[in-house]
């Protein structure tokens, strides 16, 4: 009795994200796997004439293995996995587990070893070969608990967020990306927020369901030293097991010079991790019509329709502003009326008010239009 929404999601991943073609080899990595999801993906890959390869694991078992591994073992794993990865055209990876904290039992030095000798090896192969990849945050009971929802409610939310019409969203994003590329100066206003910065020549990237599912944002980065003013974030953020609320940051020439929240000291410790942690590495607008409130998981919250987010720390290679840091901390502000509203101006012109695009060319991205499909 497979939930038909599982097949719809498999179709999005295989036909949109992976765009599987005849003869493509597709690696399916499922953690705390749902067997129906695995079967649906296999069938969808075969349907496109591709060849599926399956890896099943559980977070608890992976955690136990990682706790005991050493360099010899990781290198052996990497050798086996590299041989396979070299031959893959695509890689579907499921994140999330029954308990988000299972991996916390792995000592940091083991995690670092794994990053160096396994993760980086796979990453290098995928970059070199242009392997397509997509990461899916799966709706486990643990993820539902994080969001304060029942598992059933969370599944409803998840599938509606994952199975939006990404083709339509992608087309709608073209106009926004085009406008952002032509824009020099951004101003953001709202309750507790009055912030301005330049986005100049920094590239603009559409996130339209190719690499992440659910998806729905268009990002760039502020010119590093151009940020001035104050921003008040109204979505909570969980970092290292602590739930930050009411984060408010003030910037002077790009640098965060004042930071408050429900734990000022903890917040400032995070921002003092390295010099880049007090500068912004990403500016992004969220447009997923099926996400309208925070789930306390960045992969969902940064896609909220009517939101924007700024990331403290490292920029992305695709939209570089020169800021480097060990952290990349996405902080989300929702500007829909329920969350207090707000405006975004590009070069002095109002383009979004209270979360709704007012610029004619961008209306295709408004939730009512996208949700209608």
């Amino acid at each position, binding site marked *: 009795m497979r939930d038909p929404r599982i097949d719809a999601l498999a179709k999005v991943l295989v036909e949109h994200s992976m765009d599987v073609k005849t003869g493509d080899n597709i690696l399916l990595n499922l953690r705390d796997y749902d067997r129906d999801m695995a079967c649906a993906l296999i069938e969808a890959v075969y349907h496109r004439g591709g060849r599926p390869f399956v890896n099943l694991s559980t977070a608890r*078992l992976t955690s136990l293995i990682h706790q005991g591994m050493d360099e010899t073992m990781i290198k052996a794993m990497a050798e086996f996995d590299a041989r396979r990865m070299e031959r893959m055209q695509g890689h579907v990876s499921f994140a999330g587990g029954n308990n988000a904290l299972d991996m916390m039992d792995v000592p940091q030095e083991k995690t670092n070893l794994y990053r160096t000798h396994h993760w980086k090896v796979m990453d290098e192969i995928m970059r070199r070969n242009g392997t397509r990849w997509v990461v899916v945050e799966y709706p486990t009971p643990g993820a539902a608990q994080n969001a304060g929802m029942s598992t059933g409610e969370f599944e409803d939310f998840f599938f509606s967020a994952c199975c939006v019409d990404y083709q339509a969203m992608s087309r709608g994003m073209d106009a926004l990306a085009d406008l952002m590329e032509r824009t020099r100066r951004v101003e953001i206003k709202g309750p507790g927020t009055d912030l301005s910065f330049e986005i100049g020549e920094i590239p603009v990237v559409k996130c339209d369901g190719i690499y992440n599912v659910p998806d729905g944002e268009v990002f760039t980065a502020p010119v590093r030293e151009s940020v001035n003013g104050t921003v008040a974030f109204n979505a909570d953020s969980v970092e290292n097991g602590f739930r930050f609320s009411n984060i408010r940051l003030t910037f002077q020439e790009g640098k965060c010079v004042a930071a408050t929240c429900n734990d000022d000291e903890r917040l400032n410790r995070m921002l003092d991790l390295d010099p880049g942690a007090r500068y912004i590495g990403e500016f992004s607008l969220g447009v997923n019509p099926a996400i309208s409130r925070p789930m306390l998981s960045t992969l969902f919250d940064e896609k909220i329709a009517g939101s924007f987010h700024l990331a403290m720390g490292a920029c992305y290679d695709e939209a570089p502003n020169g800021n480097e840091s060990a952290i990349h901390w996405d902080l989300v502000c929702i500007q829909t009326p329920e969350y207090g509203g707000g405006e975004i101006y590009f070069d002095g012109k109002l383009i979004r008010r209270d979360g709704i695009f007012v610029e004619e060319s961008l209306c295709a991205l408004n939730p009512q239009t996208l949700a209608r499909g």
Partner: protein
Amino acid sequence: MTDPRIKQLAHNLIHFSLKLQKGEKVWISASNTGTPVLEALVEETYGVGAYPFIQMEDQRVNAALMAGMTPELAGLMADFDVPKMEAMDAYIAIRGFDNAFESAGIPEERLNAYNAIYGKRVHMDVRIDHTNWVVLRWPTPAMAQQAGMSTAKFEDFYFDVCNLDYGVMSRAMDPLCDLLNRTDRVRLVGPGTDLTFSIRGIGSVKCDGERNIPDGEVYTAPVRDSVNGTITFNTPSFVGGFRYENIWLTFKDGKIVDCGSNDTDRMNAYLDTDEGARYVGEFAIGVNPNINQSMGDTLFDEKIAGSIHFTPGNCYEDADNGNHSAIHWDLVLIQTPEYGGGEIYFDDVLVRKDGRFVLPELAALNPENLV
């Protein structure tokens, strides 16, 4: 909250069956077992300073994969896994199932392509002879149902037979090995069965808990072209989701020249997998005192006290009769009185009658002396 019998089993597998050493690599493959036994195995493996490599499988996921299997895909999978298997020192497979018929409906040629390519290259050519391996079942409600038992009773049965004292059994097997090594002609007689063959020079191997759990058989192989006569099996056999019953085989100079079952056409297709599939690669005698009836599963049934099995297909390297095949089809004949009785003669001397050893030097292998 792991059942202590699971920890005991994991301990026996790592320390007794595999005798895993520091620095060795073990490939642990499990389907439909749940994670507690895998966690116990990972802990035992790390406990001796060895390295666990886990492969989790699921019957339904496998069935979905098999539904589209092609020789190309099986070949690619083998390309990835052959070097991995070559790097291993040991291998454990634990197989449970939620439905014995999960692969029903998948075209035979897809399953055969997988077995003939992946199974042969990874398991027959590398794993069997180049790793220290052990294979076992996992007790599931479906397996209990197949055996006609409640799940709780089946679990008790399972852990009883798996956690048996295999040291005692191993010593009792030595005289049977000696006798097999000295024997030329074997004759099997029983209802529908009168079969002769030679085992001269092949040698014998004890299965005393090192490779299969549960265990309890001594095997050899017939000289390839020496088998003549007919054998009628009385236990069902599951292949690719099909339950074969009432199987009989007639041999002429080693080759199966006639056969029958509840689906003779399907059976002939299976025996036509390759040339070696119509010759026999193994002859074995079962002695596990806690297995007295068919559980509907080869890994249990071939160990039944008072049984023999006779296997079309590939031989083992340590009892080599030169027969090679992608299949290794263990077919079981129980000779206890409840199953119709029967006799085994070695060089015209009666060795076992109605499932009980009659020679004094083999009495230690009768069930009451092993429990």
